[in-house]
């Protein structure tokens, strides 16, 4: 059986306990998520089967800043550890103190996705499911979304509720999209996928970093026009062209970041981005005030 991995995220409060976000098993460990050396600051996860220890793995920790709240030494915990299938108990150790022990239930959660997608899904949907645990264990859930076969993204944080509100207008589209719900008792994880469905493609999303909408600048003095774009369906795709235009001055230039001196007046600055067949626009309103008045 291929190795699976357990997420271990949470924090160690001042009182020396361990608060964990619910762990979920995953098929692949994200690059860089596995700590390979047990250091003095590591949270050590010991895995036991019925006879003894089967694994001992570190998880990275780091001081936690709760801004403006004077605390002594809370620590943040984040990473994944390989999960041996025979594991029956996990023991979490920090600086030689056992902070928590967790028995692994023998059975996995039972999960059924009750939300049924229509052929094309758009807008806000309440994705619902039913879940139970044969051993009566409490369950947590996380909802993932895939616009394509090899890409998943979280559309919820870890939660106890059996529904999640998902805005499909703020997600990449595709012909064969799926929703996946993960249910976990802290280790045993059950996943169910929806039937494939279509979500409208969003294409390019240009945006103007600077200036802000409603900004006031000095006319005649070059200002930075800073724009970017991402592609909802293809995050690695670069823009072919980025063109800037003013409602007053016409064409301003090409490129993601350019200098432009605006003539006096109220400008609508439009950034047009093209990539392949995709095209998108972003715009801001900018007022250019006349250049400074010469002193008498």
């Amino acid at each position, binding site marked *: 059986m291929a190795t699976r991995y357990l997420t271990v995220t949470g924090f160690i*409060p001042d009182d020396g306990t361990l608060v964990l976000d619910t762990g979920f098993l995953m098929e692949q460990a994200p690059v860089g998520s596995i700590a390979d050396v047990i250091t003095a600051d590591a949270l050590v996860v010991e895995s036991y089967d019925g006879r003894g220890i089967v694994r001992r793995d570190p998880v990275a920790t780091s001081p936690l*800043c709760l801004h403006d709240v004077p605390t002594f030494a809370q620590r943040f915990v984040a*990473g994944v550890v390989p999960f041996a299938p025979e594991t029956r108990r996990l023991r979490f150790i920090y600086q030689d103190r056992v902070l928590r022990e967790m028995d692994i239930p023998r059975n996995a959660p039972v999960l059924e996705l009750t939300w049924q997608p229509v052929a094309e899904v758009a807008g806000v949907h309440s994705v619902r499911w039913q879940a139970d645990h044969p051993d009566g264990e409490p369950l947590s859930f996380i909802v*993932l979304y895939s616009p394509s076969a090899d890409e998943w993204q979280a*559309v919820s944080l870890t939660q106890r509720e059996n529904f999640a509100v998902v805005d499909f207008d703020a997600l990449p589209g595709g012909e064969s999209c799926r929703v996946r719900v993960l249910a976990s008792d802290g280790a045993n994880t059950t996943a169910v996928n929806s039937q494939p469905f279509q979500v409208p493609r969003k294409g390019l999303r240009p945006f103007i970093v600077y200036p802000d909408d409603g900004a006031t600048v000095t006319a005649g003095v070059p200002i930075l026009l800073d724009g970017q774009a991402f592609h909802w369906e293809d995050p690695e795709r670069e823009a072919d062209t980025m063109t800037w235009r003013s409602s007053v001055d016409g064409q301003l230039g090409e490129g993601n970041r350019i200098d432009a001196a605006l003539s006096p007046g109220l400008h609508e600055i439009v950034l047009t981005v093209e990539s392949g067949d995709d095209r998108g626009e972003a715009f801001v309103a900018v007022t250019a005030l006349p250049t400074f008045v010469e002193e008498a």
Partner: protein
Amino acid sequence: MSPVPTQCESLEATVQEIRDALRALAEDMADPDLGPDEKAAIGVQLHKAREQLQRAERDLDRCIRDNSPPPEPVTPRLEVGYVQVVQTVQSPRDNELRLVRNKQTVVRVFVSSGMTNGFDAGAGPNRWPGVSGEVRVTDPATGFTTGPVVPFNPGGSIVALPNAEISQDYTSHSLNFRLPLVAVSAARLDINVRVFVRGHENDGGGWTAERSISVDLLSRPEQEITPILLMAARLDLPVPIPAPTFNDFLRILRRGALARFPIPFFRARRPMTLVTLFDLRGSFGWAATLAAVTTAALHTTGFRGTAAGLVMPASGNAMGGIGAPRGWLFVPSFVTTFGADVASEALFAHEMGHAHGLNHSVCRGDEPWLHDARLPARTDAIGMHAEDGTVIPRQSPEVMSYCAEPRWPSIATYNLIFDTPI
């Protein structure tokens, strides 16, 4: 001989009285009938009178100098004392801190009036109003020149001060030029500065001055960041608090982190809009939210850059932000509160500083462990918010502390972030 000013006439009279007394004593001393004791007494009086005369003449000279018009003709003697090139912070001299290519850059030109004779040209003694200038920037590799760039000071000019009064901690003590992007894309810049009194642009003799310097710009990678826009919807809230918009995120990213750190620009990735059901009125809810954000990042294929969570402000929230120094965590992550104010922007930068591996500097005294011994409590360099064109003076609170605004990076923070791109 010029007449004695009215204010000094009494001093002149005193000097004359002492001179008369000295003359009388000298005549007395010449009397051949004086005995030795009388000569000694007159000698003492002579000595005292000479000392009095010395003091009185010095007082009279000062009075005449202070109350006489300066010599004509009266013209400024402009000098360009120092040219500072700054993106977020810069050392007081010699532009020692490294600069980043393709980042917004301000050139500060400190112009001295060169006046010491007390002449008042309308802006106070030894000051000269209406001083402006222009900057030209040349890429020595190509010979391409940008400019002239004009200053962005209010009215486009400053009052030139005498050298002794100039302080780098004041925006108005320098002519400030924001360089166009095209000018800061080269590896080396030759910067030529020419300053002048308005109306005398082509006059010599102190009405104009010029100076050239060169600086290097280093290439530094863009920084990727994934916006995580968080709706706060704990179940007892009558109405959920909506997530900040993507534009809200871009604004605080730019004004908070980009303005403070040696990063040319951020590459914002596709945003994730998520719901936190945790209670942000307590520190537990914040820490749980941060942990859950990290769990979500772990479940997101090919998650890249910093996971930067943002919530809208809400009364009763326990804190403004939370984050952890990167260390060996797989993904740097933090959550802060959006606000269009300096404190929110500094908070965003503070938590991003943790993402770069920095701990706390100790300014207020109750910053939590770990304390970062590399960082001072207060800044030790001249700060510049290049977008706003405002100077953040030395001894402002260090950005990694909990002191009140304006928090800004010290030289150490600047260098550490320069050397630890995410």
